[in-house]
């Protein structure tokens, strides 16, 4: 019985069993990329943030944009899969894990951005030594680390059975898998506990995820800068997060489907469902954006309007309008009728949204 | 004695941050004394000094710790600035520590431009040898001394050196000589000491292009007067009217800004005169009793002469003036009414650079308004200053060689022919040197001036330099001119040397500032005065005898003795004490503060200045020193000069030509300017104005980062010279903020970044004098001579602007 499934899913283990030159090449390339980044950061660390293009009065730039963006993506995973799990959407199974992995990885990147953006990373510990809880920045630090731990568990728990399988089937790294599998044998009792654990985590992780992004938005809305000081920033950011999250997920799915030939597992239907989800988010996002700028426009505060026009017609018009097209026009056209070329269309839409959302974060942060 | 110490300590207290006097709490300043002495740690010293970044002569206090400068603050006791300073003052810190300063003497090493370090002894030997050689050959007169911006005993020393050595060629390069009376004042009032404008008491100030709040004779002093006109001041709000083609800070702060076509100020003045007379707004009483040449008149020989009044009424109608100046008739009328109603009103027309081709008559025309307003000799009007009672120095002794040398005419021809009226004519120097006319120049001394960069005739100067076999520079920096020198004997900067400043041109008082070195020289430099004394000694004979002091402070000590003897004035101290003394003085007591000159000197050095707050009795006698004893619209002095010129030189052609090439009728002696024909624009449609930024120090300010980084607030600029173009003009030319453009004149073209400005005439572009990077505006300035300052006309150049 067990064997049959195992046989059937051999394809899944293949990449882990024998790693081809392709794998090592990718690792090498990525390794170099990382090295390059490290050296770049080293110069910044020595000379000071000045080596970046940042300046007065726009003292927050790409780093912070990336931060918000990646944290957003991170919602792909855990949040989505959690929702789907709870809503017992069966088709989700092949997707969730991927989603959860994305979350964990991306969270690290996101958090990293903030550290890189500090003028004095060497004094990072001051945040603990002199921590001051009135500062939204600390709320960030807390909720993000909470989210990180939560989603790591959430990724890990469902992994246990599979790790066990690997332990049993694979010759390689048996010890490692043994430890991680924590003596999983798949008894009734174990199953029960595990499922309960997963269920509770699923419930836990949702509020945390939401909190993370609300707090991130506070970083801006708590200031009294024009076009930041706004009450819908919370929901706006969360929606945006899920929006970009789903998009990212779809892209990832597509890629993995390609290289590992998982067509059998990731079927068009998955893409269609997620596509619909994306479509819904598109509409929601547009609605919120509209509301955000409309209130700004009618509030008609001179300062607000300066920013407003700088985005609509001023120096920032390219990014602003590009954002609108990529986040709304493109996905709409792609997603309304998902007859055939489902995958192609959804992926196209997703790519465009991913880029679009990055621009959105940029538009919020830089022009003010 | 206590009084002295307290006075000083208060200065210190205030300067060190507890600015007791600033907010006018005098009582407590006394209290702070004891504590301060305890507080002041031994290594901290506070030395009064004098700012030399402009002619203002403000007093400040240098704070040093173990000899290193640690900050400066205005001297709260100093009557010129009362504790305030302007942005330039703080450049002193960076001037002193400027890494580009010369470390010691340099000598030419082969070709011109190549220099090698040498010791002082060798350097001085080189110069002495050359001086003695020329002297023994009877060529003393072929030594020329070119001096820049400085006053007081530094001038005296060079003067004496020239006279004793035997050269008539001590030539000053400058537009303003605050220690001398303006020519217009000499000719119309016959005064021999400078007049002053009582800005602080005036209720209405009309300025013809005088950079009151940015440049001129000291923006701090002028700004304090300006503040007096403003809301919140004790008196009712006064009025400032500023005539300026450029929208300067002064223009912006003025209650009325009058943009004008550059060079037409004389006409505007006559237009205002016309309005004052036509509407009967002028001071009849004063004009009838104290002026000459207002009405038509008949001289002793029974000859009829035209008067000012009729000519103004008949020829300078408001429409004519309005057309020529670009100032609306309505505005001219309103100015006249302001002047007549807001009394006392004073008119200032003594800007540095020339107004244009008819400079002298323009200045006379402007000054005649003061007569029409009858404000001469009255508070809030025109006052005369007391000459400082400094000890007369022993007469210069001249041997035969010196006498022979001085018998030669000046090489710049100043005092003769068309330069009959000027003391110096640096403008013509180059061509005279190049032509060896009337004789070649064998040695040139450059002191505090950089003609190769700043003079409109810089190219000609550069060529002339190649003709001079021996050039000595005293500059602390390797500027364009010094780079071509054969020997450089670097001067110490003003914080490192003894200084004095003689301010006799500010209303209400005369003042003598004195300062010892605030710190030791940072490099192997020497105070040029000491060097000159040294050179005199080595040349020996009568030269040595005429400059007997072994160092500058000895000379200052000798000169200041007169102040102590004069039986008037005070070493500056707290306003409290001063007002007390003034009360006593009004009752006829003058209480000597010091028992001995030694005490006096010590106090003077410690507090930084002596002044006579009572000034002169503001009487008209002292102000009307003309032959007629009246204010002369028709200047008999000028008439006399012209006829003398005829006697001496057989012709008046050059002088008359210089005076605007007019017939020798009465008009030549009246403050009248011809109405210019509208000049057609040709291929250079724009007028170029070069002006002084508040942040630009004299001395160039080449390497004072604070000032270079934030040179202006009206335009976005840093570190780099720029050109200001009117928005309209820019749009016409398709030029945007920050674009690089070519500014081109007949003479040449330079590449600058554009800063857009609004207001003023679209036909005017401005380039600031600026110490930072960027090509020199003097590559554009046409080399037209202003016959009365012997200087280039600086606002007549026409240019065009094109995208680069």
């Amino acid at each position, binding site marked *: 019985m067990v064997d049959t499934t195992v046989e059937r899913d051999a394809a899944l283990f293949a990449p882990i069993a024998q790693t081809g030159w392709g794998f090592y090449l990718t690792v090498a390339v990525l390794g170099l990329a990382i090295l390059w980044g490290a050296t770049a950061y080293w110069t910044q660390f020595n000379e000071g943030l000045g080596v970046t293009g940042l300046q007065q009065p726009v003292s927050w730039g790409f780093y912070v944009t990336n931060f918000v963006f990646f944290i957003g993506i991170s919602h792909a995973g855990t949040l989505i899969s959690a929702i789907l799990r709870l809503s017992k959407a069966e088709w989700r199974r092949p997707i969730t894990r991927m989603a959860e992995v994305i979350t964990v990885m991306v969270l690290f990147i996101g958090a990293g951005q903030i550290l890189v953006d500090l003028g004095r990373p060497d004094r990072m510990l001051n945040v603990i030594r002199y921590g001051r809880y009135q500062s939204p920045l600390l709320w960030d630090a807390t909720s993000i680390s909470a989210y990180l731990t939560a989603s790591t568990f959430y990724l890990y728990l469902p992994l246990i059975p599979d790790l066990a399988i690997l332990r049993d089937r694979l010759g390689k790294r048996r010890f490692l898998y043994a430890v991680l599998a924590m003596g999983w044998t798949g008894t009734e009792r174990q199953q029960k506990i595990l499922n309960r654990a997963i269920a509770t985590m699923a419930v836990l992780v949702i509020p945390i995820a939401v909190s993370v992004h609300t707090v991130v938005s506070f970083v801006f809305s708590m*200031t009294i800068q024009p076009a930041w000081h706004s009450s819908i920033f919370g929901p706006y950011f969360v929606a945006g997060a899920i929006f970009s999250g789903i998009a990212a997920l779809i892209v990832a799915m597509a890629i993995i489907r390609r290289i590992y030939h998982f067509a059998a597992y990731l079927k068009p239907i998955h893409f269609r469902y997620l596509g619909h989800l994306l479509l819904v988010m598109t509409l929601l996002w547009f609605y919120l954006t509209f509301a955000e700028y409309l209130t700004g426009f009618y509030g008609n505060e001179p300062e607000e309007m300066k920013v407003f026009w700088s985005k609509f017609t001023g120096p920032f018009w390219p990014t602003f309008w590009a954002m609108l097209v990529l986040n709304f026009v493109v996905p709409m056209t792609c997603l309304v009728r998902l007859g055939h070329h489902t995958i192609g269309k959804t992926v196209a839409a997703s790519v465009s949204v991913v880029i679009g959302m990055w621009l959105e974060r940029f538009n919020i942060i830089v022009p003010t | 004695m206590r009084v002295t110490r307290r006075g000083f300590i208060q200065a210190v207290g205030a300067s060190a941050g507890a600015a007791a006097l600033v*907010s006018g709490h005098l009582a407590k300043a006394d209290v702070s004394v004891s504590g301060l002495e*305890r507080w002041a740690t031994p290594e901290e010293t506070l030395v009064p000094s004098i700012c030399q970044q402009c002619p203002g002569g403000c007093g400040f206090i240098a704070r040093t710790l173990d000899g290193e400068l640690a900050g400066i*603050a205005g001297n709260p006791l100093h009557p010129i600035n009362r*504790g*305030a*300073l302007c942005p330039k003052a703080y450049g002193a810190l960076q001037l002193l520590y400027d890494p580009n300063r010369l470390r010691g003497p340099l000598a030419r090493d082969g070709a011109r431009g190549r220099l090698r370090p040498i010791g002082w002894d060798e350097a001085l030997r080189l110069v002495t040898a050359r001086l003695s050689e020329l002297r023994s050959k009877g060529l003393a007169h072929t030594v020329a001394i070119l001096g820049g911006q400085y006053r007081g005993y530094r001038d005296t020393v060079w003067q004496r050196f020239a006279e004793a050595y035997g050269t008539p060629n001590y030539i000053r390069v400058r537009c303003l000589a605050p220690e001398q009376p303006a020519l217009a004042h000499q000719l119309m009032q016959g005064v021999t000491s400078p007049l002053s404008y009582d800005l602080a008491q005036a209720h209405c100030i009309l300025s013809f292009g005088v950079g009151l709040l940015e440049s001129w004779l000291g923006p701090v002093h002028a700004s*304090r007067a300006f503040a007096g006109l403003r809301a919140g001041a004790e008196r009712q709000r006064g009025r400032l009217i500023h005539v300026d083609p450029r929208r300067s800070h002064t223009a912006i702060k003025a209650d009325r800004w009058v943009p004008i076509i550059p060079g037409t100020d004389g006409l505007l003045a006559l237009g205002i005169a016309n309005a004052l007379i036509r509407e009967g707004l002028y001071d009849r009483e004063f004009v009838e009793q104290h002026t000459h040449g207002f009405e038509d008149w008949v001289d002793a020989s029974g000859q009829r002469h035209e008067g000012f009044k009729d000519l103004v009424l008949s020829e300078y109608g408001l429409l004519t003036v309005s057309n020529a100046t670009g100032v609306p008739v309505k505005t001219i009328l309103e100015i006249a009414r302001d002047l007549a109603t807001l009394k006392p009103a004073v008119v200032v027309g003594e800007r540095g650079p020339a107004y244009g081709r008819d400079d002298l008559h323009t200045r006379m025309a402007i000054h005649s308004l003061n007569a029409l307003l009858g404000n001469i000799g009255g508070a809030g009007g025109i006052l005369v200053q007391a000459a400082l009672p400094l000890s007369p120095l022993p007469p210069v002794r001249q041997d035969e060689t010196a006498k022979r040398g001085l018998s030669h005419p000046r090489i710049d021809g100043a005092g003769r022919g068309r330069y009959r009226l000027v003391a110096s004519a640096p403008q013509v120097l180059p061509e005279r040197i190049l032509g060896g006319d009337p004789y070649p120049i064998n040695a040139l001394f450059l002191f505090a001036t950089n003609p190769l960069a700043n003079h409109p005739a810089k190219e000609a100067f550069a060529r002339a330099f190649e003709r001079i076999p021996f050039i000595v520079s005293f500059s602390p920096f390797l500027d364009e001119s010094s780079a071509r020198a054969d020997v450089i004997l670097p001067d110490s900067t003003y914080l490192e040397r003894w200084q004095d400043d003689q301010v006799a041109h500010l209303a209400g008082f005369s003042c003598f500032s004195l300062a010892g070195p605030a710190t030791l020289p940072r490099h192997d430099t020497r105070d040029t005065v000491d060097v000159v004394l040294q050179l005199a000694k080595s040349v020996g004979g009568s030269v040595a005898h005429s400059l007997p002091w072994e160092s500058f402070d000895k000379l200052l000590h000798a000169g200041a003795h007169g102040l102590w003897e004069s039986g008037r004035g005070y070493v500056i101290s707290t306003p409290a004490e001063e007002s007390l003394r003034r009360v006593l003085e009004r009752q006829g007591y003058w209480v000597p503060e010091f028992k001995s000159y030694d005490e006096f000197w010590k106090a003077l050095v410690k507090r930084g200045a002596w002044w006579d707050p009572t000034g002169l009795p503001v009487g008209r006698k002292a102000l009307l020193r003309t032959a007629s004893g009246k204010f002369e619209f028709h200047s008999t002095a000028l008439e006399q000069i012209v006829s003398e010129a005829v006697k001496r030189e057989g012709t008046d052609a050059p002088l008359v030509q210089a005076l605007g090439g007019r017939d020798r009728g009465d008009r030549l002696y009246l403050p009248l300017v011809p109405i210019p024909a509208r000049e057609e624009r040709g291929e250079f449609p724009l007028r170029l104005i070069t002006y002084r930024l508040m942040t630009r120090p004299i001395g160039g300010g080449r390497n004072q980062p604070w000032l270079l980084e934030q040179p202006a607030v009206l335009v976005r600029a840093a570190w780099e010279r720029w050109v200001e173009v009117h928005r309209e003009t820019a749009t016409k030319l398709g030029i945007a903020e920050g674009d690089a453009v070519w500014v081109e004149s007949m003479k040449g073209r330079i590449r600058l970044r554009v800063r857009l400005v609004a207001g003023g005439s679209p036909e005017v572009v401005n380039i600031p004098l600026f110490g930072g990077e960027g090509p020199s505006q003097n590559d554009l300035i046409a080399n037209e001579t202003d016959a009365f300052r012997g200087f280039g006309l600086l606002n007549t150049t026409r240019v065009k602007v094109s995208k680069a």
Partner: protein
Amino acid sequence: MALWGMVIDLDRCTGCQACVMACKAENNVPAVGAKEAARGRTISWMHVLVEESEERTRFLPRPCLQCDDPPCTKVCPVYATYRNPEGIVAQIYARCIGCRFCMAACPYNAKYFNWLRYQKAAPGQNPDVSVRPKGVVEKCTFCHHRLQKARDRARAEQRELAPGDYVPACAETCPTRAIAFGDLSDSGSEVAKLAKSPRAFRLGEALGTKPKVIYLSETEAQGRG
């Protein structure tokens, strides 16, 4: 407890920048150099803004407004900027982690960041003020060190701190005396009186930051010829 404040008379201010340079000299604020200045990184604790409008142009010197309800301190994660009991908003350079959150929060752009190591200890600096390292935020401190000095002096003379003992460098140097400084809580003080003037206004009143730097507007619109 004193409440230090400043009143700046815009009718008097000529935009001369004496205050700007005095501040640089007093507080060891470096020039950042041509390249950095071009990137808009010039540090100017006191900055003279120009307000242009149809009827008039005016100069508006802007130090840190020392808001009594400062948005900048609220967001600092490490207490590196805070409002002290006398209302002065202080910076702790040694603690600042350079997140620049406070800069984002200051509606008056009164804060400046040391993008690079601009300052090296050099002769000519004021030993009473510490030199800032790279990566921290700095701003006008109301010349707080002068208050400490004035206190020490007063103590040494066994007396209370008197008005005029403590005057910031900018106020001390202003040629038109446009800057008045003193204790707003002392109703008799010059600043307290001026603050009540009908000409008095605050920057961004609506933001509720309660600046302790108060401006006096000009009375007459400037005439034009």
